């Protein structure tokens, strides 16, 4: 499919707010994505609170490759490719733990939690003292960097710093991750499940789509758990933060008596006023009703009150053109009142994640699109990404990037797709 000038044409279409259905279920596009997006972009792997002590590790995926994300005994966080340097055996078969060393079950090469090769059975006899162990340590991802506790990995040695990569998005991430000086903590472990969905669909949805809420989540509208006012997304802003990162923020409509600061408990609100880097962020947070967004390519975040506020991170981990593993974390301010943590957790479990009454229906939609996208009709089938194309950015918006003065738009999806396209066709996306 790709040979027929498809990509070039697609690029032109995206500029007009049109995409082709087939991109959501195509093996060749997936192959390109593996190499050109997942082996280059910064991919979220863990939150620092998941590996607080030296030796703590979690096994995570960068694209479809397994990495051990570990805090070494030197305190540094590394992402070590989970394969033994001898013959490639998968080294760590658990999902998380505590390790001083890793022992390969094939021939017994042993590595320190910093990646160094420290033990080789029969080293003297079998290698005649010619094995230079310093050269055969575990493969370490070239970039492992954190922002406010969020650990990202890039496999591209040419990649810029994480801070540069996140660009204007840091201002918006601060709203969710800097309320408390004690930071966020992941509660328990992420929920993981596998769905027959193309990974791009949820990534785009979280970056942009307030339009679906009334229909996809109509069962919750009926039960009074989602806004029934079709105007709800008019009170908001739709932000493209640069580098493909995008989000929407809903504001409290003037006629609704919703609590400021999403209804977070008093101590959290007091702390955020001290901890946010700017007064403008405090003002945005004060009238914020929800925050949905995606850090390009596949980390989405959601902060909403249903009616208790909760925060979830989710990674759409690609497993193929029509298969995605969803990772869904619940996080809360480490020093929030215990009773609040409990209610926030319950709200999250009931609404998002494996059994979430919102997410169940999202998955049904993404699955339905993926199922329609794999055939020859889909190769010619144009999709409409033109919602809100006529809106002009709001020049008074205090944050970075460009913001439309409402959240009913598909501008972020267009922005996301444009960035996706740029990665696919660029030899070097950093130029």
């Amino acid at each position, binding site marked *: 499919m790709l040979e027929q000038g498809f990509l070039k044409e697609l690029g032109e279409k995206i500029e007009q707010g049109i995409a082709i259905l087939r991109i959501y279920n195509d093996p060749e596009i997936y192959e390109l994505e593996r190499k050109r997006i997942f082996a280059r972009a910064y991919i979220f792997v863990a939150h620092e609170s998941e590996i607080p002590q030296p030796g703590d590790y979690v096994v995570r995926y960068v694209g479809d490759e397994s990495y051990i994300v570990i805090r070494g005994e030197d305190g540094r966080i590394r992402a070590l490719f989970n394969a033994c340097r001898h013959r490639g055996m998968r080294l760590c078969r658990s*999902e998380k733990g505590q390790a001083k060393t890793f022992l390969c079950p094939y021939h017994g090469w042993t590595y320190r939690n910093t990646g160094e090769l420290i033990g080789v059975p029969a080293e003297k006899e079998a290698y005649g003292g010619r094995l230079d162990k310093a050269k055969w340590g575990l493969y370490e991802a070239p970039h492992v960097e954190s922002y406010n506790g969020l650990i990202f990995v890039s496999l591209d040695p040419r990649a810029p710093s994480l801070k540069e990569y996140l660009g204007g998005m840091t201002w918006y991430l601060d709203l969710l991750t800097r309320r408390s000086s004690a930071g966020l903590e992941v*509660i328990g*472990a992420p*929920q*993981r*499940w596998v769905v027959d969905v193309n990974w791009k669909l949820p990534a785009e949805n979280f970056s942009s789509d307030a339009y679906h809420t009334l229909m996809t989540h109509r069962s919750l509208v*009926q*039960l009074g758990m989602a806004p029934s006012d079709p105007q709800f997304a008019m009170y908001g802003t739709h932000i493209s933060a640069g580098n493909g990162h995008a989000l929407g923020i809903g504001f409290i409509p003037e006629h609704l008596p919703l609590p400021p600061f999403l209804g977070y408990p008093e101590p959290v609100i007091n702390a955020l006023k001290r901890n946010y880097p700017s007064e403008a962020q405090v003002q945005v947070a004060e009238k914020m009703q929800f925050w949905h967004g995606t850090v390009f390519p596949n980390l989405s975040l959601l902060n909403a009150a249903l009616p208790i506020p909760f925060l979830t991170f989710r990674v759409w981990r690609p497993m193929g053109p029509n298969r995605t593993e969803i990772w869904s974390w619940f996080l809360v301010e480490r020093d929030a009142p215990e009773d609040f943590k409990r209610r926030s957790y319950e709200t999250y479990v009931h609404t998002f994640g494996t*059994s979430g009454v919102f997410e*169940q229906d999202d998955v049904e939609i993404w699955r339905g699109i993926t199922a329609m996208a794999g055939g020859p009709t889909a190769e010619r089938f144009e999709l409409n990404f033109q919602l809100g194309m006529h809106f002009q950015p709001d020049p008074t918006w205090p944050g970075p990037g460009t913001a439309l003065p409402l959240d009913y738009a598909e501008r972020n999806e267009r922005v996301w797709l444009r960035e996706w396209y740029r990665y696919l066709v660029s030899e070097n996306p950093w130029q």
Partner: protein
Amino acid sequence: MISPELEREVVTFLLREAELLDEGRYQEWLALLTEDVRYIVPVQVTGEVETEQEVSMNHLDEDRASLELRIRRLETPYAWAERPRSRTRHFLSNIRVYPGERADEVLVRSNLLLVRSRGDDSQAEWISGERQDLLRRVNGEWRLARRVVVLDHSVVPVRSLSMLL
């Protein structure tokens, strides 16, 4: 001591409960729960030696009110994940009944295999685990007071837990 009659009553209760779930008779199913029911499906994480139950994170963590809400949702015409409704089959086996802490309670462990098929997908989904139930006799009838489902999966192999286990 668990008498054969008691054991039979418990098995009858569980089979009846599974029938109501598979037939989508949720209001009747709700009537089988105690007022203080807890319903928990913990996240499982593969540790270095054993699989560890994540005590602070669950796939479902429900009380009566939240289960009622889930069912009210399924009864709206817009619960897309279950519209049209999945075909489910709860297979229960290895049912073991143990005395509870109170005279009017029993602990029941059983193996669960749940098969779900939706729409015209030829591929059915399945999920398995152990149910750890606490049944209580209320006004002479057995009621479900607590259910913990210990899944055999760390990565849940179904598209969503829109059905009850």
